């Protein structure tokens, strides 16, 4: 029940944020998608013991947060919600890999290094995905998909799913509320009730799909999805993409923190 309300309010928050009008929001959706993909690819391409080299990549989310005027706390909360999941994933590494490694004079188990590396990578990649949608929104994301030659019918279907998630989650929570009022102290649905509970909603979903189809059909839908014009890429968009890509690639090739550190500690 609470996870349902949470997901719904998170989706709605991201939807609201995507309607802001900052310079980041105005960057072409395709460019933002491609920038995100380059970012993810570069971050993920680091080997499993890398920690220090990953740190410069935190610049990207921080700058997006700042320029797009996004509220840090609620988005961080969303990311932290996934974090226990990641910890669960990574914690087995130290369990299985006990070989030691010297790190700044301290011996650490390699498993922990891998764990930390995964944790950082996961935080960065999850943040990047959420920031993409928080500065783009589903409608404009759909534009990017269409520019990538994804069939329009599939794009329409994704948009429909997105649209009806909130309708259906509300419907489901209403039914769960009605159920739990008559079944106090029960955790989750009783197993035997599941089939008819979900089945009822499913049948209503079929009926709704029928009505939605009629509504579409009455307004001339014949299986083809016509959309508005797509905005062209501007020089600004290309510059944005080029600048970030350059930064990502440089940060991938050179270990920037080590370079900075050497300057200060005078080693080299």
């Amino acid at each position, binding site marked *: 029940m609470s996870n349902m309300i949470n997901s719904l309010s998170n989706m709605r928050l991201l939807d609201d944020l995507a309607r802001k009008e900052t310079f980041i929001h105005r960057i072409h959706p395709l460019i933002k998608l491609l920038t995100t993909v380059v970012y993810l690819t570069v971050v993920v391409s680091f080997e499993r013991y890398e920690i220090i080299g990953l740190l410069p990549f935190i610049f990207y989310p921080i700058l997006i947060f700042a320029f797009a005027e996004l509220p840090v706390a609620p988005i961080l909360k969303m990311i932290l919600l996934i974090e226990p*999941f*990641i910890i669960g994933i990574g914690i087995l590494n130290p369990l299985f890999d006990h070989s030691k490694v010297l790190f700044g004079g301290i011996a650490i188990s390699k498993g922990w290094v891998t764990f930390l590396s995964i944790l950082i990578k996961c935080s960065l990649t999850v943040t990047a*995905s959420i920031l993409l949608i928080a500065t783009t929104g589903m409608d404009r994301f759909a534009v990017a998909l269409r520019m990538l030659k994804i069939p329009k019918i599939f794009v329409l279907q*994704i948009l*429909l799913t997105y649209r009806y998630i909130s309708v259906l989650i509300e419907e489901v929570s209403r039914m769960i509320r009605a159920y739990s009022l008559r079944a106090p102290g029960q955790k989750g649905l009783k197993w035997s009730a599941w089939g008819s509970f979900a089945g009822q909603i499913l049948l209503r979903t079929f009926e709704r799909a029928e009505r939605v189809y009629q509504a579409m059909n009455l307004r001339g839908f014949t*299986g083809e999805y016509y959309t508005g014009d797509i905005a062209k890429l501007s020089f600004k968009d290309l510059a944005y993409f080029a600048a970030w890509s350059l930064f990502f690639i440089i940060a991938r090739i050179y270990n920037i*923190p080590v370079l900075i*550190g050497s300057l200060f500690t005078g080693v080299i």
Partner: protein
Amino acid sequence: MMHMADALISPAVGGTMLATTAGVAAYSIKKLQNELDEKKIPLMGVMGAFVFAAQMINFSIPGTGSSGHLGGGMLLAILLGPYAGFLTMASILLIQALFFGDGGLLAFGCNVFNLGFYTCFIAYPFIYKWFTRKGITSKRIFAGSMASALVALQLGAFSVVLETLLSGKTELPFEKFVLLMQPIHLAIGIVEGLVTAAIITFVWRARPDILEKAANEEAFGNISMKKVLTALSIAVVVVGGLFSWFASANPDGLEWSIEKTAGTAELEAPDGIHETLSEIQSKTALLPDYDFKASENEKTAGQAENAWPAVNAGTSVSGIVGGALTLALAVFTGWVIMLIKRRKIKTTA
């Protein structure tokens, strides 16, 4: 069934799986457009939303104290047919990746394949359809849902193992990983089978026309068991071949991983399992060759340390100092931009 995360895959694995999935999706769209049933588009859209919402309905599993929920891949295949089911699964996973960071954009191909391909294109046509080939009864629905969910989840789980392994982001012997993943997904598969059977039976009793319509659409329902077995064994040979080719070409990949298993929210493995499993594994030695290599790896652990560029006394100190400075600089930059922005808003207001 768990989702692969971006952080656990390599760009090569992510890219390959994305291309594969895109191919299957393109084929499915083409097939759907040939059907010329524009009614299906809104149905797929709304059904995607249904599965999304239904995944959040928890129910208690009797006698275990834990709770489970629907995955939905089999359900979509049975109600919409393989092509529409696959595309609907893909759109659900895309929204989950974007809005919840559940799975990811790079791992999107892996996830659609693991959760959508095996259910819609293996389990549904070859198993579910085989069970219901002589018409639908509640027993056949049950047997078909159960068998197909089990097979689909086993294949999906094995895919996760392979994808993680090929990415080489974590350390863990293949056998341990497989021995952990497959049994857990046996349990998840049973739950998924029960859930799917329950809901399909309900639909069949209330609106048999829905199931009949979905069943009539596909011509490849009456496939003989012989063909099924042939198809499955070809798949096994291909997968196995690829796997052993990789294993010999890239001994590094032998440091398999296990992480995803613990991420299975539905069923968390108690600590004891790991120990028992590693015991079982060491006794049975499923793949002795790999076992040997793995232990060899341990012997050469010293070399591996040298191979790690950041690990030697000098650079690691500057690494820590530089890392701290980088972080501080990043946070400072963000803070300055926000400060300037806020001041701008104040002066204009």
